[in-house]
């Protein structure tokens, strides 16, 4: 049984990996300027023309890399939060981390946008930076308010929804005081978008994902015991409080970095962990890598569709994620 599941996990992982590669090639090919697979190959090996090179290397490739990274980061973060809080509905959005990041961005746009305090070259990094600070602030608030001889999962969830409501209300209040241009900018950020990205964002995001996703998978064993409940975990010799804090830290780091670059992409972190658990079972060492691959694939596919279906105008990627992920998830719910 165990050997079979292991083999199945590898097969599914391989299939997802191939699907990602296929989507990448397809997605590089599609767009306002179409580039054939052969030309892609030529360009990648350094024999393409200058225009193709620019489109591929300056626009499409960084954007897709970012979609892959955010997809993996958001998904693993959602999976960790679901396991730590032992709640199937938990994700970075519902317990206030996205709202914290969103509030910081709205506050930044409200205070500094259009002013001469921040120069243009610096300003593209200021929004991700404030988002990251906001996400961490929200997480610290949630953790300290729920601390009382340790944090219990239920208190984390409750304090999380409280913090989420408060930040959401503050976002609305500041948004209403903005002029229409800033209002639109804030709305676009809040609904999640990964357009207008370049390699510097990739470089900023990459270390977080490379460091924390493997770390999360490494923590799989203690996550398995944590998911069984506090008493069982303690009985099995897990240092519950310390492990919980470590896992939460990883989850917040992943969500914070992803939100900073991609905005509040909803639903991804909630649904993909469930999908991967349905495929390979609830053992964390198995389903976490699958979830990371699946999240990356879903976001790249959604971004490709959003970019091309009504080209040249774009559909926010979050909408496509909900429709694709939601329909597949509903199908799975009905089948099992």
């Amino acid at each position: 049984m165990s050997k079979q599941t292991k083999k199945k996990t590898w097969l599914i992982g391989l299939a997802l990996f191939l699907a990602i590669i296929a989507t990448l090639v397809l997605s590089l090919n599609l767009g306002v300027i179409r580039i054939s697979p052969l030309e892609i190959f030529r360009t990648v090996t350094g024999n393409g023309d200058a225009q193709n090179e620019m489109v591929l290397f300056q626009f499409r490739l960084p954007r897709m890399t970012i979609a892959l990274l955010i997809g993996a980061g958001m998904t693993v973060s959602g999976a960790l939060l679901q396991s730590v809080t032992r709640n199937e509905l938990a994700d970075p959005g519902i317990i206030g981390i996205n709202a914290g990041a969103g509030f910081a961005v709205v506050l930044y746009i409200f205070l500094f946008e259009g002013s001469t305090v921040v120069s243009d070259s610096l300003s593209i990094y200021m929004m991700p930076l404030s988002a990251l600070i906001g996400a961490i602030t929200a997480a610290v608030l949630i953790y300290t308010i729920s601390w009382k001889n340790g944090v219990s999962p239920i208190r984390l969830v409750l304090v999380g929804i409280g913090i989420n409501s408060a930040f959401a209300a503050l976002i609305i209040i500041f948004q209403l005081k903005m002029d229409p241009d800033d209002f639109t900018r804030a709305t676009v950020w809040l609904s999640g978008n990964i357009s207008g990205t370049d390699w510097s964002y990739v470089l900023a995001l990459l270390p977080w994902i490379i460091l924390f996703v493997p770390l999360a998978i490494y923590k799989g064993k203690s996550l398995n015991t944590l998911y069984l409940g506090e008493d069982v975990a303690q009985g099995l010799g897990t240092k519950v409080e310390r492990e919980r804090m470590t896992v939460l830290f990883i989850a917040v780091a992943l969500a914070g970095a992803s939100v900073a670059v991609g905005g509040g992409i909803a639903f991804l972190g909630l649904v993909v962990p469930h999908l991967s658990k349905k495929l390979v079972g609830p053992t964390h060492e198995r389903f976490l890598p699958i979830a990371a691959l699946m999240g990356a694939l879903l976001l790249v596919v959604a971004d490709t569709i959003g970019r091309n279906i009504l080209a040249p105008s774009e559909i926010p990627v979050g909408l496509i994620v909900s429709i694709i992920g939601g329909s597949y998830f509903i199908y799975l719910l009905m089948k099992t």
Partner: protein
Amino acid sequence: MANITAADKGPRPLLATVILIGGLAVLLLTMGLSILYGAADVKYATIWQSIYQFDASSTSHQIIRNLRIPRALAAALIGAALAMSGAIMQGMTRNPLASPSIMGVTSGAAFMMAVALVVTPSASSITMMLWAFAGAGLGTGIVFAVGSISKTGLTPVKLALAGTAVTAMLNSLSSGISIHFNIAKDMSFWYAGGVSSVQWVHVKLLAPIVIIGIILALLLARSITVMNLGEDVARGLGQRTGLIKFAGTIVVLLLTGAAVSVAGTIGFIGLVIPHITRFLVGINYRWIIPCSAILGAILLVAADTVSRMINPPFETPVGTVTALIGVPFFLYLARREGRSL
């Protein structure tokens, strides 16, 4: 799965009775204040006069009778409806993150509103209300169908997950429609939520539905308390869990559907008031449901009054005010008693 039951959280009937009786008094007082304060100045005596010696030529009598009284009544009814729906949802799914909107009620209503704005852009507010209510039914129907069709039947987790997925999809479709047909601005009024445009006709439609909803909810309360012990326990104790879930869904649909059709989406109350009530009165849904109704009504009437006073003559969205008033109190309670919820 978070467990909402705990040994040391027995019901506190005395406190619950105090909340019911005292809360009713506070509610009447808050409604009085809500009628008194607004952009136009009004005196206490004028309120009585406008009720008992109505003078159609007096502007302040008109304002009180046709704007402020229906508005205060609607706020109380909607607050009560949302809070009770939330209590039922959390009790049935045994999940503290469940809110009435999770059953697809709100997103279904929003979806049909978007469709209606495209198909019949010049419809009256009553027609729009009916569209929204039909949408609420549609959303809930899909969620319930998705949850029930599967072979293993309708477990609480599945209900919550199906609801979340359907909600996300319907919301995406509404956003897509509003972006494509350029009705985002009309929709945003509805998303912001509020009772500022309420008229008597709304109250007349709302009141019977909410009263029927309250009666049904109270009839269900006992079964929900047992359901909250867990599906297997409930079945062992002779509860027909499938029937209860169906009835609970219908009540949530009636209450939330009526509320969102009139007032748009008002968050926070349905999610947080049931928690606050549970902290206060303990786990017995025969107390939780009526006390939630009273507390929800007080919060929405108070928030609606405050929303008019923050930045007159403009109104601050009432959902933000409910959150800003409620969150500190909620966090305090969550910290104090959270371990044993």
